């Protein structure tokens, strides 16, 4: 094999773009002001590819843009009626899978799932609500774990480790019974910083930092109350054009 090329050329929605080999599609798109919705993805963190909402067509095949590195000559479609329907479907499934009562949730307005639902103008899911019985775990001094709201994105698993690198969060069970657990030993020794970070990384209100006062910023003045999710990415495009 020859020397790795410094740049590869791809097209995203008919726009020719140069990117470094190995970069993930979603990051390249983001840099160019093209918003691909994400939920489990967290910039700079090893991707999980679990929510599937960032699915795009790569040379006609559905692939998750958060896990697929760019390669020379890739033709990528980020928007089509079918892709839009996939994305709406994922959001709707997540709403019926858990128990998401936005008005009573501390994360409301800062919640990425809620923000995506607004952006996709979802009024009512096509699937029946499951209303599962889920536990709230308030046994940790610094964190409240509410499994009703968990979307199993693995962000906590992927980002929070103790100082020796031991994983603190993990999955338990599989399939429909999948849930997040906190390690009994390392969980006890979680620092303020770790707990705060875990809650901040959680896209929904499944992990809440207990030392923070609830509703300090009133609903209505929160992050996604001001502008739809993805606006920051799309602004980049406008700046570029002007």
């Amino acid at each position, binding site marked *: *094999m020859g020397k790795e090329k410094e740049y590869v050329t791809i097209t995203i929605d008919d726009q020719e773009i140069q990117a470094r080999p190995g970069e993930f599609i979603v990051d390249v798109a983001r840099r160019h002001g093209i918003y691909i919705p994400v939920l489990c993805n967290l910039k700079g963190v090893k*991707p*999980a*590819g*679990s*929510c*599937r*909402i960032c*699915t795009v067509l790569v040379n006609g095949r*559905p692939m*998750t843009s958060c*896990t*697929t*590195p760019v390669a020379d000559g890739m033709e990528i479609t980020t928007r089509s009626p079918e892709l839009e*329907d*996939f994305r709406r*479907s*994922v959001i709707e*499934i*997540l709403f*019926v*899978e858990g128990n998401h009562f936005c008005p009573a949730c501390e994360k409301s307005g800062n919640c990425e799932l809620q923000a995506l639902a607004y952006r996709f103008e979802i009024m009512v899911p*096509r*699937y*029946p609500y*499951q209303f599962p019985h889920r536990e709230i775990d308030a046994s940790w001094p610094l964190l409240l774990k509410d499994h009703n709201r968990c*979307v*199993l994105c693995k962000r906590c698993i992927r980002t929070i480790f103790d100082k*020796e690198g*031991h*994983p*603190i*969060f*993990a*999955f*338990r*069970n*599989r*399939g*429909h*019974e*999948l849930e997040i*657990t*906190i*390690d*009994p*030993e*390392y*969980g006890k020794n979680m620092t303020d910083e770790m707990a705060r970070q875990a809650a901040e990384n959680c896209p929904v209100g499944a992990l809440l930092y207990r030392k923070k006062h609830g509703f300090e910023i009133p609903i209505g003045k929160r992050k996604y109350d001001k502008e739809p999710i993805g606006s920051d990415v799309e602004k980049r495009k406008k700046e570029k054009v002007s």
Partner: protein
Amino acid sequence: MKTTAFDFEKITEKYGNDKTRLMDMLIDIQQELGYVPQEALPVLARKTDTSQAWVEQTLSFYHFFRRQPSGKYTVFLNKSVVSWMMGRERVARTFEEEAGCRFGEVSPDGLIGLFDTSCIGMSDQEPAALINGKVFTRLTPFRVREIVRNMRSGKPVTELSTSGYGGGRNALEVIRSEVRNNIQRKGPLLQDNYQYGEVLRQKLKTLSPEDVIREIQLSELRGRGGAGFPTGLKWEFCRKAKGERKFIFCNADEGEPGTFKDRVLLTEYPELVFEGMTLAAYAVGAREGILYIRYEYKYLEEHLHTVLRKLREENLLGKDIAGMQGFDFDIRIQYGAGAYVCGEESALLESAEGKRGEPRFKPPFPVEKGYLGFPTIINNVETLCDAVKIIHFGSEWYRSLGTEASKGTKVLSISGDCRYPGIYELEWGYTVNDILDMSGAEEVQAVQVGGPSGTLIGPEEFDRILCYNDLATGGSFIIFNQRRDLLRNVVLNFMEFFIEESCGSCVPCRNMPWLLKQKLEKILNGHGVWKDLEDLESWPGIMRINRCGLGQTAANPVISSLRNFRALYEERIQKGRSFDEGFELEKAVEESCKAVGRVPLI
């Protein structure tokens, strides 16, 4: 309990306190104690330098791992579709009556635990069960009573059955199993026209690794596990990939309900399987091989180890194999612990590394970055056997078998409503009708080709042919006669299978089979309306975006039955209604009206 005295550290040390060997540690503990007690977790976490949450993540993923004492005799009774067809219901009821507990429970005296399990690879001799790892097949209520009586009198698990040993090597001292091979048809692969070791001892003297790869490519051999990737190309990629170590995996995790051919290959032809792995190692330059085998085939463990020892003694494994200077290769056996998804090659690697069997995203592919991050080949048991025969008899010979687009033969696992269930080796190109004739099937309503992830077809499609560009299959072939209720007994069973076997990572796969099952039950219970059929048609589309083959095919039972047997659905929905009212008032008050002699005021 005695567990307080149990030395968990001895087990972690046996595996070098290496967290990638967590599966082996958990399997050993379970083997010793019958379950994995909670107090094992802190020890395992500390010794392998992980966390308890991490250990539990693996432990809770595999369904054969028990967390509580599960009986001195732990019974796992197969609940796959063929088991039901062959009389599981009465067998299960007898177990419950005799043991004095329900499925999912342990008898009050702690003697017997009863549990369900997915297909255990015995569809040609159902109903079948695993009891403490030993296989019991062709169960009847009478035999169940006998077995439970023997349990009560304290007999060891090897003496519970009186049915004698199955044929062939099943009768070997190291197997001693009542499992029958049921080889109904031998083709070029299964024919005994080859003495193992000849390829390694003779052919490789004149063939370079590149020659081997070229010959495999010329044969047009494709993966026999179901996906059909060209084997030679896979080997070439791995040969070219850079890595300090390279690995050859044999995928013996056949979990597709209705398939059992690998069971027979590993019983009767393990030398061929291991020679195939060694051949692949020669071709790509690997020194380490792993046979990843499903827990259901634990009864073959001693047999396989015996064969490996024999091959080492005969210089067909180990150092300077067959006298070739510097050609070193050896194989170890890695057991799974009950997870269909681990048959997906990257989930298999995760599992072999001691983790939950969650498929990886690709790229990178295993040939570049596989086991422990090194270039890795993962081939199906049958593919590896084919490869040996191709090198022995030549690619031209192999290409003369099969059809224009699908070369060679396929070993089918045929079960269900036919007179001669078992394995059949056929050249590609036979029609479904041919196969039904061959196996003695009559009044056939439908055939499930390729297992639950495959497709359900009816008589109007029985002239289709088995090959990669028509009906491709990993080998499962289940026959249903006219008396079977396809929706209730087949489709629903398959959907329950996929619900249980999803790893849960992808949103659609974790939820959609569940949602579809609810719809199906609604229709089966007479509450369905036209809109429910439309939903069943449109909802599964999203399964395309799941990460792995399991997720992408997990709605296939609904999709293919709705396409090919739509009338079965239509006859069950409420006609002329666009909305299900949940219940009929007249019907609901009927009984009470009758009792008090009143005419309902509706």
